[in-house]
């Protein structure tokens, strides 16, 4: 039923020919497995593909060329901070001293990495105004879970066991309510008002059952929460703790320290703020900073400096109130090496400049895009802003989805669309500080040209993309009758282009 298009690639399984492949490993002795009981042995070998190395290389190089990436073009995906990923960082993470170090290597063997991690914790604490930082969480979402579990442990340690609710604004990332549920809390959604948290609704929801409030600041609309001081006072007056989703930290480096302002805990997304690669979906790392009150509950092990200046990991059971561990070993160290290199390359002054430039670029682009699109919150934004095609849709029937797909024909990755859920036909646009003003102008010109096409030739936009490797996909069938793995028997029916 399916054919392979010109630019598409046959699967690894179609490329396979029995008997192909190179000897990478010396053949083991014949009796190597004799001591394994027969019933524990695999009866039939796994039907993995057989390819020689040149075929493998071609497969993956050709596949890579079907991807859009930061290295190929402008990627203004709001809320994701798609900034340049420095090549020095890739080089550093691959230094054999870092890359081949075993995570259970004794402290005396791991002094270089332990020092790096210790310093990174100090840098992140200074940037966030927090007292201490754990580097263990593997990603922002795991950082959120770490933070919420610490908050739960904090309340329990005080005998305050009635708090079973977490307040989350309606514009939040989905990970916030999902995290609250995972930690056993009920999510109370707070409506927005004029781009911020609705303070009346917020106060009404806050009470003796509130364990925590999770706030993204700047918000997912790219707006600094103007009432944040008041909100934090109210949270603490109610005996709850304040969690900051640090996804949008790129806007406020050197301008706002969440810990100083009164947040009790926050996570960092190093793949957003500190340039570690997004990797097609991951890996990330989600360090978490806390203020004094939550120190006892930090996950273990922490990285410590001894009196003699050497570094060590905390031993099992050394801090009995710890929430324990959410993953194996110390953290995604390979990612953290990259973040460390980024921080050192910028220094304190450079980091502040990062946010200044990111915010300047976003405001400049907001002004330009506003020439042809609705800007629901047309005031100073931070590192990103929301535009809307609601007016265009009303006039022409062309939706934001269509405009996003048409941007692909113009050579751009579309912005985040239909998020936050609170804006009709929304596009969340985040240019980052590493894009030149020429790029920003060219992107704005493209959006403006598309807005014109919506009036003159709406079908052209609705049928986009026209120049991508594939057209729009049948997502309904994909979900109704999921085909989630290659079935070798299907191979015979598939025409193979080579």
């Amino acid at each position, binding site marked *: 039923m399916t054919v392979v298009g010109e630019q598409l690639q046959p699967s690894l399984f179609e490329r396979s020919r029995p008997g192909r492949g190179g000897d990478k490993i010396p053949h083991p002795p014949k009796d190597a497995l004799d001591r394994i009981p027969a019933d524990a042995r695999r009866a039939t070998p796994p039907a993995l593909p057989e390819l020689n190395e040149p075929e493998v290389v071609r497969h993956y190089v050709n596949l890579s060329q079907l991807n859009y990436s930061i290295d190929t073009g402008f990627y203004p995906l709001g809320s994701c901070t798609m900034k340049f990923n420095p090549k020095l960082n890739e080089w550093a993470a691959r230094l054999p001293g870092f890359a081949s170090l075993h995570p259970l290597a004794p402290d005396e063997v791991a002094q270089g990495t332990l020092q790096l991690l210790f310093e990174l914790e100090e840098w992140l604490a200074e940037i966030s105004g927090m007292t201490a930082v754990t580097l263990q969480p593997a990603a922002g979402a795991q950082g959120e879970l770490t933070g919420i579990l610490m908050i739960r442990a904090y309340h329990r340690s005080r005998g305050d066991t009635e708090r079973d609710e977490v307040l989350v604004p309606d514009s939040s990332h989905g990970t916030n309510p999902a995290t609250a549920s995972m930690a056993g809390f009920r999510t109370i959604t707070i409506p927005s008002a004029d781009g911020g948290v609705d303070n009346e609704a917020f106060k009404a929801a806050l009470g003796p059952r509130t364990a925590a409030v999770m706030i993204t600041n700047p918000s997912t609309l790219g707006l600094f929460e103007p009432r944040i001081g008041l909100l934090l006072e109210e949270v603490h007056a109610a005996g709850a703790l304040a969690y900051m989703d640090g996804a949008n930290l790129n806007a406020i480096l050197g301008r706002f320290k969440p810990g100083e302002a009164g947040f009790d805990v926050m996570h960092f997304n190093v793949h957003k703020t500190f340039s570690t690669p997004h990797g097609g979906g991951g890996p990330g790392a989600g360090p978490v900073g806390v203020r004094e009150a939550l120190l006892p509950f930090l996950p273990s092990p922490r990285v410590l400096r001894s009196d003699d200046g050497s570094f060590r990991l905390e031993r099992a059971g050394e801090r009995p109130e710890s929430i324990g561990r959410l993953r194996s070993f110390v953290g995604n160290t390979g990612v953290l090496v990259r973040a460390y290199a980024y921080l050192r390359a910028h220094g304190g002054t450079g980091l502040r400049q990062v946010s200044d430039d990111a915010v300047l670029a976003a405001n400049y682009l907001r002004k330009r895009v506003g020439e042809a699109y609705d800007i629901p919150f047309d005031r100073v934004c931070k590192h990103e802003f929301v535009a809307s095609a609601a007016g265009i849709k009303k006039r022409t029937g062309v939706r934001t989805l269509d405009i996003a797909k048409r941007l692909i024909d113009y050579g751009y990755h579309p912005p985040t669309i239909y998020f936050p859920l609170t804006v009709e036909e929304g596009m969340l646009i985040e240019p980052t500080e590493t894009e030149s003003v020429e790029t920003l102008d060219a992107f704005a010109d493209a959006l403006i040209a598309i807005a014109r096409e919506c009036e003159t030739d709406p079908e052209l936009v609705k049928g986009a993309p026209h120049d991508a490797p594939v057209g729009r996909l049948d*997502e309904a069938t994909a979900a*109704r009758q999921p085909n989630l793995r290659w079935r070798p028997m299907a191979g015979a029916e598939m025409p193979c282009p080579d």
Partner: protein
Amino acid sequence: MVPSDLRYTKDHEWVRVDGDEATVGITEYAASQLGDIVFVELPDTGRSVAQFAAFGVVESVKAVSDLFAPLSGEVTAANAALAGSPELVNGDPYGEGWMVRLRLAAPDEVEDLLDQAAYDALIAAG
């Protein structure tokens, strides 16, 4: 226009009452708002549901919505055809796309539901 012999919830479920039995589904408006429906999660038979409480979930490609019971009762049947063909909800929401049958616990609750005119007005108000 929506069928006149049905009653509706504000959450876009319909119910067809027949004595102490009732059939429940979602309206054409709801199905079109959700888009291509790809999965319907329904309760086991024998389960009791309370009026306006969630009894299942409907998923489209990029959205998900709880299903709320228009009336209280015990589930006597769930539409097994939706497991293999969730698109029936889009194609025939008031017929083959039905979701559950209930044996009603409190038939008077039907007074709490919208009639055709009220539901039309609800949709028109957007």
